[in-house]
């Protein structure tokens, strides 16, 4: 067990639906009702046209590994994980988001850019956050 807990997000009213969906096992992102574009991270207006007419859509939970670094100096709570990858996943819907890659040892040989990944979920205190694992693997 880590001496310290990993950071847990503190949702705001506009991000709460994202974390509520994660708790239900879904990765939801916002889409603009005016220009139609999906985006991440959750926010009060569309970054493309500033409209506040937004909806939540449920993503496929699938994506590809866009880039990452493997951190050898762990953040508080991550002592048992180091070295661990901090990755950015490109969702099949287009937007990108940060995640860890779980269910596989985080080595350069294992983590090949553009490999298929799929969402999984991790509890952080009272909040659930999305994570990603190589596609087609059993849940851990």
């Amino acid at each position, binding site marked *: 067990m880590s001496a310290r807990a990993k950071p847990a*997000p*503190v949702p705001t009213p506009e991000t709460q639906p994202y974390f509520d969906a994660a708790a239900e096992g879904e990765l939801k992102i916002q889409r603009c009702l005016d220009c139609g574009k999906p985006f991440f991270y959750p926010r009060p207006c569309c970054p493309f046209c500033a409209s506040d007419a937004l909806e939540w859509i449920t993503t496929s939970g699938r994506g590809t590994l866009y*880039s990452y*670094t493997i951190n050898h100096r762990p953040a508080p709570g991550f002592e048992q994980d180091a070295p661990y990858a901090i*990755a950015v996943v490109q969702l099949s819907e287009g937007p*990108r988001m940060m995640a860890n890659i779980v269910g596989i040892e985080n080595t350069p040989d294992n983590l090949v*850019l553009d490999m298929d990944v799929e969402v999984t979920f991790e509890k*952080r205190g009272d909040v659930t956050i999305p994570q990603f694992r190589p596609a087609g693997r059993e849940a851990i």
Partner: protein
Amino acid sequence: MARSDVVIVGAAETDEVGVLPGHSTLRLHVEGARNAVSDAGLRMSDIDGIASVSAPGPIQVAHTLGIKPRWIDGTGVGGTSFLLHVRHAVAAIRAGHATTVLVTHGESGRSQVGSARGALPASSPNAQFEAPYGVLGPPTMFTIPLLRYMKEFGLTAEQLAYVPVAQRKWAARNPRARYREPITVEDVLNSRMISYPLHLLECCLVTDGGGALVITSADRAGDLPQPPVHILGTGETFESPLISQMEDFTTSAAFRRSSAEAFAEAGITHGDVDHLMIYDAFAHVPIYGLEDMGFVGRGEAGAFIAEGNTEPGGRLPLNTNGGGLSYTHTGMYGMFLIQESVRQLRGQAAAQVPGVEISVAQGNGGMFTAAGTLVLSNRTP
């Protein structure tokens, strides 16, 4: 035709840079400020504008120095803030809001004496959507785009490792540089892995130090002791506060926009640039900078550096103080970019490049978040 009506007339660093546990953050500001005002041949009472970054920020710095400003700028966008302060000072002086502006930097980055480590609120987008994944400061964030760049353009680990090797050659000529011993690509690749694919020697130093600038109108500069450095063009912008939301991980939109605006205002082309400073927090940043500023084509910067073009004797001298990788890096290094540009334009640099007439400083702040660019010259256009 670029205007050249605002000039840098004073520029100085703290007496020492490096490990200074006896210096508070505020003292580093004050020491740099006193040195810069003295360098300008002015008195503190001549200063009527102040710019600095919190904490301690412009008000505390001005109060400590006894300055009663009629213009204040506290723009804080990370390490490039001081380049933005210079840009804002140009506008303020042209508008008549100030006649003589002092820009200060001081940071106890290594010793943490009287410093304030900024933490974002737990409900900020960064804290909600990046911190849970174990990011811890610049080495874990600035590095994330790099693998995508390496895949897209075939940049090799050896080419990347050559960036600190080239800069160490400049540092070897600078007695103030923290590290001056020559290093090889093998040394870099054998150094400890910090955040794959970056090794220790591909990461900047963490030091204590400071510096300041005095900026005024060209018509006031005539009687002052130092040759004036004309501010020909400036740029500023930002891209994304979250590294994961950069539009394209192989290029910095902030570098592109900021530098294009500065070059256009100055009316210069890349061939006019005699000397270049690019904020080198990590080895890949000068690679992005060279390409995004347009000095070389996309994917060409690694080879350009490895071929020796940016080192002593090369055709585009880059980071001639040794850079953040070998000279000093307090945390917000941008002030030191400007200091070295001014020294080169005055002919006062430790590793002086012959005949520098135009120097460009390119800063970044908050990883790839913000950018600022200055085009400086020792002659009028």
